[in-house]
């Protein structure tokens, strides 16, 4: 093996391939594409369950809390917007502003989790549970899976705030922040797909 191609110990190493013009690095794209595939499988399950149970899927969305679904969509989109503004602020060397935008996104993540929890409780009070019928089975499987992603995604946002405050990122070197931003947008993309499928389309 040619020794010249190996990074020296202690030298900054990353998977970034600037020449190929990839935002973040290849590792995060492998993760994002895997996650998108996982959600795609769930959406295929939804479509197949739907064609076999048209009445249940026609009635299902009417008994869900549209307000909670809509509020969480607005919250997810806003959190993604805050994350974009945070990356822009870092590029502009405005690290304080960048952390403020990120705290906004963290607040959105926490608010999302609270609303989802209240929605599940509201559902339970209406007698809507995983066993009620296959529509609610799919609903709980998909939305709880997404709920977990928002949970660890929010923790990831707190981690990059810590990294900014610890001086790990600069105007030119902030790949970790971009990776986290991309991962968060993936969580947002999954939700904007879930919202029409489960709450709107009949």
């Amino acid at each position, binding site marked *: 093996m040619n020794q010249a191609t190996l990074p020296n110990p202690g030298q900054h190493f990353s998977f970034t391939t600037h020449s*190929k*013009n*990839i*935002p973040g690095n290849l590792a995060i*794209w492998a993760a994002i*594409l895997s996650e*998108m595939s996982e959600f*795609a499988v769930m*959406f295929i399950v939804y*479509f*197949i369950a*739907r*064609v*076999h149970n*048209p009445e249940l899927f*026609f009635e299902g*969305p009417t008994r869900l809390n*549209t307000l909670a*679904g*809509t509020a969480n*969509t*607005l919250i997810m*989109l*806003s959190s*993604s*917007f805050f*994350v*974009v*503004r945070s990356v*822009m602020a870092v590029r*502009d060397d405005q690290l304080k502003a960048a952390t403020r935008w990120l705290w906004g996104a963290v607040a959105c993540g926490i608010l999302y989790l609270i609303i989802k929890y209240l929605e599940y409780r509201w559902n339970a009070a209406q007698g809507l549970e995983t066993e009620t019928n296959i529509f609610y089975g799919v609903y709980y499987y998909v939305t709880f899976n997404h709920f977990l992603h928002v949970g660890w995604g929010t923790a990831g946002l707190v981690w990059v705030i810590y990294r900014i405050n610890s001086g790990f990122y600069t105007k030119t070197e902030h790949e970790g922040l971009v990776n986290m931003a*991309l991962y968060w*947008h993936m969580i*947002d*993309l999954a939700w*904007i*797909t879930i*919202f*029409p*499928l489960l*709450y*709107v*389309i*009949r």
Partner: protein
Amino acid sequence: MTKQAEIKLIDTLWIVLICLTLFSAWMAERAEPGFISIVIMAAVLAIKGRIIVDHFMELKHANKFIRTLMRAYFYVIPALIIIVYLYPDQIARWTSLS
């Protein structure tokens, strides 16, 4: 694009996404279920997905392979919404084991 123009574009797109979501919510509550509303919902999803992929993930001028995969997602899912609405019986037959 200047920094100010970039910020303005992102702010505008955020407002567009919010408006599209409020429109979807209105449709969920008020619109009559039917083919037209299914096509509108699929189109709204395609537009929202494309805005996030192109501008929030900054893939518009990035690596072609990743951009194509991510954009394709928001052609395929909206198309499936329409196809599943139009041909439910046929798809049910294809996905039956017996």
